[in-house]
């Protein structure tokens, strides 16, 4: 069992406009994990992160980081945290080198050129260190933001929508980078509305909608708990109705009767597939093709959001 690093208790936020962005969220973030907060736009992901980092004040509840309260002991907690914001918010005329040094200084750390050099090299930014920020491409700006967030050697990194509006290749680069950081011991919390992203890199996934945390679970457990597999059977000849002998299998016929779909739980001892195939054979239905598929997080997510 991993140690818990961030504890969020009944956290609520109502903006001045009256909008309830967070509603009594409880969440525990474990040391060394990659946690993905998944939810549609406006679900409250950014608000949650902003409160932990000190950009927004909560209207209820509390957060502690490594046992220290984020409001009364902000100096301690903020030292442990790095934040990569969603927007590419960078000055225009600073150089890459100056801006990472500035960030490090803001967090009260003594200058350490060797560390920052290695950091920029790791992020493939070293040859751009003297470039002005406005000269950089979007992908590079994103990396500069990450370098700034890591400049003070934080233990926790928040990435707010790190791959929003980023092309496929850059996205894969980003995932690699996140994994590498995680391997070096940094706890990572990222928000995303791409299910693929959560599925790809997270250890645990939390699903947020309308300011409420619907569930948090290990990605594998989540998939198992909610993930059913389906077997699609293509028939040589279409059938009008399902023979009574097959009634127990709850098969769903396609409209034209040329396909049958069987849903099963892949984690139980007997999936029933062998029996089904035997029964099909017995009633004289011959098969053309078989295909299995797994429900993705996307389907799980849609099911969860719709069921409320």
């Amino acid at each position: 069992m991993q140690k818990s690093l961030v504890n969020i208790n009944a956290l609520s936020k109502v903006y001045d406009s009256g909008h309830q962005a967070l509603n009594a969220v409880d969440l525990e973030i474990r040391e060394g994990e990659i946690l993905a907060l998944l939810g549609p736009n406006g679900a409250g992901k950014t608000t949650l992160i902003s409160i932990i980092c000190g950009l927004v004040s909560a209207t209820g509840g509390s957060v502690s980081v490594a046992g220290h309260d984020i409001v009364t002991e902000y100096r301690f907690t903020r030292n442990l945290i790095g934040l990569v914001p969603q927007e590419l918010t960078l000055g225009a005329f600073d150089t890459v080198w100056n801006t990472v040094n500035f960030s490090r200084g803001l967090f009260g750390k003594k200058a350490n050129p060797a560390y920052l050099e290695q950091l920029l090299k790791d992020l493939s930014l070293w040859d751009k260190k003297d470039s002005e920020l406005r000269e950089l491409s979007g992908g590079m700006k994103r990396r500069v933001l990450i370098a700034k967030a890591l400049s003070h050697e934080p233990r926790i990194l928040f990435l707010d929508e790190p791959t929003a509006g980023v092309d496929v290749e850059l996205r894969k680069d980003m995932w690699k980078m996140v994994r590498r950081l995680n391997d070096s011991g940094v706890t990572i919390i990222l928000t995303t509305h791409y299910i693929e992203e959560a599925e790809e890199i997270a250890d645990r996934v939390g699903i947020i909608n309308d300011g409420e945390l619907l569930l948090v679970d290990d990605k594998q457990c989540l998939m198992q708990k909610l993930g059913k597999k389906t077997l699609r059977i293509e028939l040589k000849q279409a059938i009008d109705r399902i023979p009574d002998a097959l009634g127990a299998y709850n098969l769903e016929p396609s409209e034209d009767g040329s396909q049958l779909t069987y849903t099963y739980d892949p984690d139980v001892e007997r999936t029933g597939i062998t029996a089904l195939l035997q029964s099909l054979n017995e009633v004289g239905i011959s098969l053309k093709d078989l295909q299995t598929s797994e429900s993705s997080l996307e389907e799980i997510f849609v099911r969860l959001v719709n069921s409320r």
Partner: protein
Amino acid sequence: MINLQAIKVIYKYEMLRAWHTLLQTIASPVISTSLYFVVFGAAIGSRIEEIDGVSYGVFIVPGLVMLSLLTQSISNASFGIFFPKFNGTIYEVMSAPISFVEIVVGYVGAAASKSLILGTIILITANLFVDLDIAHPFVMVLFLVLTCISFALFGFIIGLWATNFEKLQLIPMLVITPLVFLGGSFYSVSMLPPVWQTVTLFNPVLYLISGFRWSFFEVADVSVGVSLAMICLFLGVCLVLVWWMFKTGYRLKQ
């Protein structure tokens, strides 16, 4: 524990920003001051009689220094905080382990330092045009420093308050410039009709210029003690305002 490192980087960053816009920060006030000297000091001034025993060209020096000091302190400090707010980079300062006091010291300290340097340059420039004797150098420096800090603070408040560029320019343009011109930069209040003399007493800038002028020539519209008290009062009001803004997270934190 104070995050000295953070104050240092903010201060350095702001000073560096001035370095990048050196022409705008230093050259433009120096040029405009020189123009004032040519027009008011040499051309018109030669036809104006002495005021309180001081020749007109010399008389306007303290007012001119104050004019630049006030506008530059305000614009330096307001831009310094408005830009990060405007382009979003303020997130970093807000998420860093820095107290509000440290943020203010960094930004306002840098803006005040720049104005102080500027004031010195303008005095040196003035000395090229006229012979300046400073009767009370320490009092003069005290006025310079207090004015730089107070108005840098005031500029910081404007920068926090402003939500767009128009608002950022509004107060310096519509309030400060008229107050400075009507506060006796170019004349002695005693030259005004009695009614306007009374009205002028409500202009806070009058006290600044009067006190500052006293440190040069020992002539003043109001007593130097009152001047000092007024600038301290203004500083106090700005401090309270800034304190309130940060306490409530005004325009910075939702």
